[in-house]
């Protein structure tokens, strides 16, 4: 039998299926085919040819997401031993495990784009790559855990749901799994919040105080408004929505759910225009966002240091894995 892989192509590049950019063509022609494919809603796999701009764009985006999952467990980790009941402790432990699992899945996606995991850890710890603003802040009370699990995860899931349609298919598939797990976290967080709201006056006040503190970072989380046509991640369909679209979506879903609990939001300007459906709000403090994500937040350095120490402490595990004789050789 003839090996099908040894056959010469019988079709002209432009006739060969929907992925002519995988053919041996001059770079600019490939680029055009690639761009047309992606803009028309086509998907890209790790094994496909891709322009450098696309590869680095996806890599930067996924790496930042992976970093945020990894660093995002540290504020919650601080409460594992202080959770008020056994069931809360189990749920929080499972959430922490999930988030680290998401980091693993996302670093795997990024590795396939060509950057080794050790290099990604090097860059994270050296401050060359970033993680989300909300994970640079302290957790002061148990109510913070409810607010993080409910509202930080909700703000994140609004963005992540839109990423299930990313043009980079391995990322899109991973986001489907991650969104499914995040939906559990939101229920867990909302349950913590509703429990505190229906508790003592002190518990209620503690929750309101946490919400007041987290509202600023939550409003900054999706980033400043930027024109759609200038955003290269949107151009390549790596992501689907602008930061303002995500913030509006978050407000539309969650403000009513917060207010129905009798809680207040610390923004006198926050209101929805009944005609357009758009929310107006006090301009978030973008200087604070810039300060925090460049690792000058209240807990940035402490959390990075925690990662540095734990990386050193676990180095021997990674090295012993690499040193162990292969099972075949040992047999």
């Amino acid at each position: 039998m003839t090996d099908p892989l040894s056959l010469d192509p019988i079709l002209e590049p432009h006739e060969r299926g929907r992925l002519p950019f995988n053919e041996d063509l001059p770079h600019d022609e490939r680029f055009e085919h690639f761009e047309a494919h992606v803009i028309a809603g086509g998907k890209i796999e790790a094994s496909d040819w891709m322009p450098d701009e696309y590869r680095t764009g996806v890599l930067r985006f996924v790496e930042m997401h992976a970093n945020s999952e990894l660093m995002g467990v540290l504020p919650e980790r601080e409460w594992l031993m202080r959770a008020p009941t056994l069931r809360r402790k189990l749920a929080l432990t499972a959430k922490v495990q999930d988030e680290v699992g998401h980091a693993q899945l996302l670093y795997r996606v990024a590795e396939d784009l060509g950057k080794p995991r050790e290099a990604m850890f090097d860059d994270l710890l050296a401050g060359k790559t970033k993680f989300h603003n909300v994970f640079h802040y302290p957790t002061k009370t148990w109510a913070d855990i409810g607010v993080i699990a409910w509202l930080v995860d909700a703000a994140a899931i609004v963005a992540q749901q839109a990423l299930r349609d990313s043009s980079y298919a391995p990322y899109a598939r991973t986001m489907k799994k991650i969104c499914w797990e995040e939906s559990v976290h939101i229920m867990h967080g909302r349950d913590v919040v509703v429990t505190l709201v229906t508790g003592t006056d002190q518990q209620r006040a503690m929750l309101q105080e946490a919400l007041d503190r987290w509202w600023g970072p939550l409003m900054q989380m999706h980033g400043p408004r930027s024109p759609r046509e200038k955003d290269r991640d949107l151009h390549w369909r790596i992501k689907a929505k602008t930061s303002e679209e995500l913030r509006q979506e978050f407000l539309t879903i969650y403000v009513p759910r917060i207010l129905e609990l009798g809680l207040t939001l610390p923004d006198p300007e926050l209101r929805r225009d009944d005609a357009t459906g758009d929310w107006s709000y006090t301009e978030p403090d973008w200087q604070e966002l810039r300060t925090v994500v460049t690792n000058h937040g209240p807990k940035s350095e402490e959390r990075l240091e925690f990662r540095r120490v734990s990386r050193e402490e676990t180095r021997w595990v990674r090295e012993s894995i690499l040193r162990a004789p292969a099972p075949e050789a040992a047999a």
Partner: protein
Amino acid sequence: MTSPENGERMIDEGSPVVGPSLEPWEVFRREKEGDPMRHGGSVMAPDAVLALHYAREMFGRRQESVHLWVVRRNDIHDLADPDLLDPPLDRSFKKPGGYVMRDKLAAARERSGQAKPKARDSKAGDTKARSAKPRPAKADER
């Protein structure tokens, strides 16, 4: 915690790796009994044993899988040649949708003098006839 001796040197100086190196393993999972194995994602591991441990942590820690496979990515042979898989030729004769006979059927019925039967009646009749067919008893199979 101290790191094992020479550990640092082994990684940093790029000396020949004594043990295996990490490589990607593709993970397939069966969600529930009777389902096909579906691709779930991948893990980095030096061998199948550790790949399975990672796969369990990543894809089976909340009872979402009843069976897992790991396959070394390098052991997968693939074919994506559009000459063979997606030629621009009409292949509709290979698919049920390639046969559209509504008008011809109407003409045939008209010619034979039979009114068009109500779609629902004819379907119900078919189902009845099929389910009336004797099935092998379970005892016979044993």
